[in-house]
Structure formats: structure tokens, C-alpha cells
């Protein structure tokens, strides 16, 4: 579905990602875990060309490395960015409309689906997104990303700053989405991520330190010590 080869991201002379390879198969949840500054966000931003990069990104076998961001999204990859980045000056409805910018025909149907998938949002359609709670904003960000009907959904730290109960709800929805689409999940909350993922990559200082089936990583001593708190 999505294949990444020798991806490198530099900010000036500082390397954030040092030549990583990843393979994301259809209808799986793949998680990329690692500590702060390991290069997780840079990896996602590089895939959609928000930051400059070197290396190859293949989507359904086609090379998309050089495509501008808006085209990559149109081709079927969505990113829920770190910190949610909902349009706080737009209403909930308008945020969803922005997500369906190139999908006019299916807007009504998808919007209704989203309000079913995220009932917390359905009572606040005309409210400015800036007035929502953190959890609701996260749900709106996910719903907005789904409005373009992506084949691959990438989520950057969806649990960041949320209450444990809300994290549970969000992760349940992500698991639910796996039936329909492919998911690349970046998380600091390694335990929660590995529990719902099929496959995991551990990123350390911009390089892949470990990879394998999520269940194996959960049992790995090194991973337990470093990321799962013993």
C-alpha cells in the first residue's frame, strides 16, 4: 500500500530522519513509536511533502515522492497532524467541508457518517471548532481527514494531551477504521499503540532500531524497558 525507501529528512545540517525503510500493507494498522525527537513527525510530514526530504515514497506501487502536498492528499493519503490543527475560526461543519474540498459529491453522505462515528460532535455542528474540548478537537481532526475518503490514514500522536477515557474512545475508533482503510499511527503512548497495531517500528535518533509484529514488540524486553515503563 505504502512503501518508504531510504527516507531522509534534514533541517539545515541536522538529521531528523536518517534513511529509514517502512512497509505498510493494506488493511493493517502500522505504528511508529519512539521518544520525543526521534523523527516520528518528520517522517509523516516527509511522506506528504510538508518538509523537504530525500528518498522514495511509493503509494500503491506508484512513486509520489515529488508530488506537491495537495496532490498526495488527492491521491488518497490523509494526515491528522500533531496537535490536531483544526481550523478554530471555522465551525465544526465547515471543518468537515474543508476535509471534503475535492469531494463535493459525497460531502453530505460522509458528513452524516462522521456524526454517527463521532456522536460527541453531532450536537456541535455550528459551533466554532476553537470552542471544542481537546478530545472533541481530536475527533474532529480525524473526521476531517476521513472526509476525503483516503486509502491510507496517518495519525500523528492522537492521544497527546487527552484524558485516558478519551484516548480509549479514540483508539477504539481507529481499530474500527481498520476494516475500511490502512492506518499509520505515530505514538508516544507505545503500549496503547502496539496493542491495536499489527506491526510496529521503533524509531531512535532518526533510524529504525527495531521492527516486527506488534505482539512481538510488546513482549520484547528492550521495548518494555525503554517505552513501556518496565
Amino acid at each position, binding site marked *: 500500500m505504502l512503501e518508504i525507501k531510504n527516507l531522509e529528512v534534514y533541517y539545515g545540517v541536522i538529521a531528523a530522519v536518517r534513511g529509514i525503510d517502512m512497509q505498510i500493507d493494506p488493511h493493517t494498522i502500522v505504528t511508529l513509536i519512539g521518544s520525543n525527537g526521534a523523527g516520528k513527525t518528520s517522517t509523516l510530514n516527509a511522506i506528504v511533502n510538508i518538509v523537504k526530504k530525500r528518498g522514495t515514497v511509493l503509494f500503491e506501487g506508484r512513486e509520489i515522492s515529488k508530488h*506537491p502536498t495537495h496532490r498526495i492528499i488527492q491521491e488518497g493519503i490523509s494526515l491528522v497532524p500533531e496537535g490536531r*490543527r483544526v481550523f478554530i475560526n471555522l465551525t465544526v461543519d465547515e471543518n468537515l467541508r474543508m476535509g471534503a*474540498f475535492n469531494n*463535493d459529491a459525497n460531502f453530505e453522505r460522509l458528513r452524516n457518517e462522521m456524526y454517527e462515528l463521532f456522536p460527541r460532535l453531532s450536537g456541535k455542528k455550528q459551533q466554532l471548532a476553537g470552542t471544542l474540548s481537546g478530545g472533541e478537537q481530536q475527533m474532529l481532526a480525524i473526521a*476531517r481527514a476521513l472526509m*476525503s475518503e483516503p486509502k491510507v490514514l496517518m495519525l500523528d500522536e492522537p492521544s497527546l494531551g487527552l484524558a485516558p477515557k478519551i484516548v480509549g474512545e479514540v483508539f477504539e475508533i481507529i481499530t474500527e477504521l481498520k476494516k475500511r482503510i490502512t492506518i499509520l499511527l505515530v505514538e508516544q503512548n507505545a503500549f496503547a499503540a502496539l496493542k491495536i497495531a499489527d506491526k510496529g517500528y521503533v524509531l531512535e535518533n532518526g533510524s529504525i532500531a527495531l521492527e516486527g509484529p506488534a505482539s512481538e514488540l510488546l513482549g520484547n524486553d528492550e521495548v518494555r524497558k525503554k517505552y513501556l515503563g518496565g
Partner: protein
Amino acid sequence: MDFSTFLQQLINGASLGSMYALIAIGYTMVYGVLRLINFAHGDIMMVGAFLTLMGVTAGLPFPLAVLLGIIGTVIVGILTDKIAYKPLREAPKISLLITAIGISFFLENLFNVIFGGIPKAFPAPDYLTKVLHLGEIYLPVTVIIIPVVTVLILGGVLWVLYRTKYGMAIRALAFDIPTVKLMGVDADRIITIVFALGSALAAIGGVFYAISYPSIDPLMGVIVGLKAFAAAVLGGIGSVTGAVIGGFILGFTEIFVVALFPELGGYKDAFAFFFLILVLLFRPTGIMGEDLERSRF
């Protein structure tokens, strides 16, 4: 001042304020999306007046000349963005600002070379310059038409911003450019729309100016542009409604101060900048502005 004089000055003020408002909208919208004070915007208005004059001189009917003038100005506005500003999207804002000043000088001197620096008469058709007698009030037709057309145009701009998909994208872009790209939107296309819209309004303002003060020259955009900028700041830069309010306040003030204190007539250009200084000192966010970090349109 008796009532009929008051009414007459009120309409004059609305007419002048309309011109400032039309130009101020361009400043405020470009600032909203790019955080750029486009100092070439006043000169874009001059371009509108000159291109319309070219059409009239070539013998075209006035409405057609205005239409072609607007289209030409829109093309010039879009080109300034594509050639001068787009390569600097990731550059520090000060580089953009300096570039805008450069574009301003470039346009002024380009038109100076082409048309010469001597003010040119702007031949408005008789049906616009005709003076109406309404009781004791004497009003040129333009003075009535200008505010009416301006209000219609403003309604149109607000409709685009709040009722269309592209207007929504403009509002979103003002808040967060990278995230707009993540919606699959070509942000540069939206920015082009903003420059096109701003340039069209400036061209209309330029034509209004040329009809009201029936001569034009390549430097006509400097003072009017700066006053419109002051109006945009007064209203709250980034806010379209604010730009309109600021434009009208400036228009009314100029007309009424001169009407009430004719001895201050020579200082009328100073009021805009007096306002600008007051706003910057006491309420830098302007009338409609609340949050410098956020744009509200």
C-alpha cells in the same frame, strides 16, 4: 452647517470612504493570508485607472473599458504575486515587505516611463459627471453611485468569504496554511484568488478615484494607498468588515473636518496618519481586531 449641507457632506464622505474601503479590503485580505503588508497595492489601484484610461482613449465604450481595466489589473496583481512574492513564501516576512516596496517603485516608474509623469485628464462619460439638484443639494451622479456600488461589492465579497467553498478556504488559509494543504487544497491557487479579488476591488477604487478627481498620474496610488492602509489598520488588519468600517471613518472624517474647519483643509491628508498613530499607540489591533495571532475576516 444647515441640514442640506450636512446631507451633502455626508454623501461626499460616504463616497470618499467607499474608495478607501475598496482599497483597504485588498490590504487586509493579503495580510490575512500571507501576513504581508502589500505596499504595492496602492499602485495596483493606479494601474486600474490607467488601463481603463487606455481603453477609453482607444474609443471603447466606458463600461467595456472599465471591465477590461479590471481584468488587466487582476492579471497584474496575480503576476506580482507569482513573480515577486511566491518565491519568498518560506522567507522571513521582512523580505516580503521589502519586495512589496520594490514592486511599488517598479510599477510607479514603469507607468511613468509609458505614460509620462504629467497628470492625464480622465474623460468620464457625461451620465456619470452630471450634477443632480435635489432641493438645495447639488450632487454629481458619481457621488451617489460610488457608495451604492461599493456596498453591493462588499456584500459580494462577504458572500464569497462566508457562503462559498473558496471563501471558506481563504478563511482557513488565514489561520493555517500547511493544514489547508493537508485538505488536498492547492494553497497557491487560493492565494491567487485573494490577489485577484483584491486587485479587482483596487481597480474599481481607482476608476472611482479617477472619475471623482478627474486627472490621474503614476503616483496617484501613493497617498491613497497609504490612507487605505491606515484605514485597514484602524479597522483591524485581517478583518474585511474592519477595513470597510475604517475606510468609511476615514472618508467621513476628512470631509467633515474640512467642511467644519475650512482653515484645516490643507492638513486633510494628515488625518489618516494621525488616526494610524493613535491606533498603533492605544489599540494596535484596530476596531475589529482582538487577537493579533489570529485572523478573523
